[in-house]
């Protein structure tokens, strides 16, 4: 039952959760009642009647959005690079995409730095994980063949997201989307190494299937920053 109530937005739950649960517990719930609660949760999200504390958006989130655009520009440049020939055959030269990808990851790291800065002082391990991700990201962009660097970036990013969730900086949904953005490409990449899944090894399919979900990371960081933090009440001294 409390899982159903968790569908409601946080400000609504802060105001009504206790009494709402008391009403739900007062009689057996039918399927129709459960659907009614889900509809109520959607209504509370689309037409919020209860508003939380005022939030201050962090405009650095726009840099993460710019990073998202640069990331896709880099993918576009890489996918349309010139065909080169060498003694092993032909390949598409995506070298000109590196500046785009590097810039996009640097912008992402700036966003990550803002999230690290908002962590409570007790979340030291999360902060270290975030800093490692901030450093590993740009290195990975320049040297994408270094799998350990990729792992440091991904694991650091994951730890930062989970820690930020615990600190109330990131929503559960944001962590799930970020996790999908990282796990789906990694899973498919690993699968393509084990299973003879040749379609995934072509550059064009890789770009869409493996890299597209990764771009969700930029969107999640941008959303987290632009969603902002709660405004601290100011006590005026007279």
């Amino acid at each position, binding site marked *: 039952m409390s899982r159903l109530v968790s569908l409601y937005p946080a400000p*609504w739950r802060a105001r*009504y959760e206790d009494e*709402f649960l008391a009403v739900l517990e007062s009689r057996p719930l039918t399927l129709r009642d459960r659907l*009614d*609660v889900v*509809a*109520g949760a959607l209504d509370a999200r689309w037409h919020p*009647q209860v508003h939380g504390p005022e939030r201050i958006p962090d405009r650095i989130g726009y840099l993460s959005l710019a990073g998202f655009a640069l990331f896709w520009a880099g993918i576009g440049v890489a996918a349309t690079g010139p065909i080169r020939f060498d003694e092993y055959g032909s390949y598409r030269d995506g070298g000109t995409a590196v500046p785009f990808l590097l810039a996009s990851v640097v912008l992402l790291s700036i966003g990550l730095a803002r999230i690290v800065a908002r962590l409570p002082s007790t979340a030291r391990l999360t902060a270290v994980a975030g800093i490692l991700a901030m450093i590993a990201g740009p290195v990975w962009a320049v040297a994408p063949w270094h799998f350990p660097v990729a792992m440091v970036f991904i694991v650091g990013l994951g730890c930062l997201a989970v820690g930020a969730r615990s600190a109330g900086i990131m929503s559960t949904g944001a962590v799930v989307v970020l996790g999908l953005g990282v796990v789906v490409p990694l899973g498919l990449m690993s699968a393509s190494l084990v299973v003879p899944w040749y379609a995934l090894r072509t550059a064009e399919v890789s770009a869409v299937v493996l890299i597209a979900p990764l771009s969700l990371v930029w969107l999640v960081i941008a959303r987290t920053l632009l969603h902002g933090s709660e405004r601290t009440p100011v006590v005026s001294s007279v």
Partner: protein
Amino acid sequence: MGSALPGWGRHAEPSLLILISLSDGPKHGYAIMSDAEAVGGRRVGAGTLYAALARLESQGLIAPLPDDGSRRRPYRLTAEGAASLTSQLENLRHLADTGLDRLEGAPG
């Protein structure tokens, strides 16, 4: 009824039932729901009830009584709520009177 709660759509009827339920004194959520079902003649889900209740509270038509530590928080009708309820019921009475008059005057 629609003129008193413009734009409330499917929440207008449960809102009216809540206002009617609170018109004879404060009640908590479950009591409102049971009363609304008795008056309206059909089951009112908790999701629907609280969607309407949150609207009524945000519009100042109902207000919670001070928190006494109980999970069952009672609500009361405000002066604005009483005025809105009166207006809605008068509209409904006018509607019913008009319909009944026409039925009585109809040939056959």
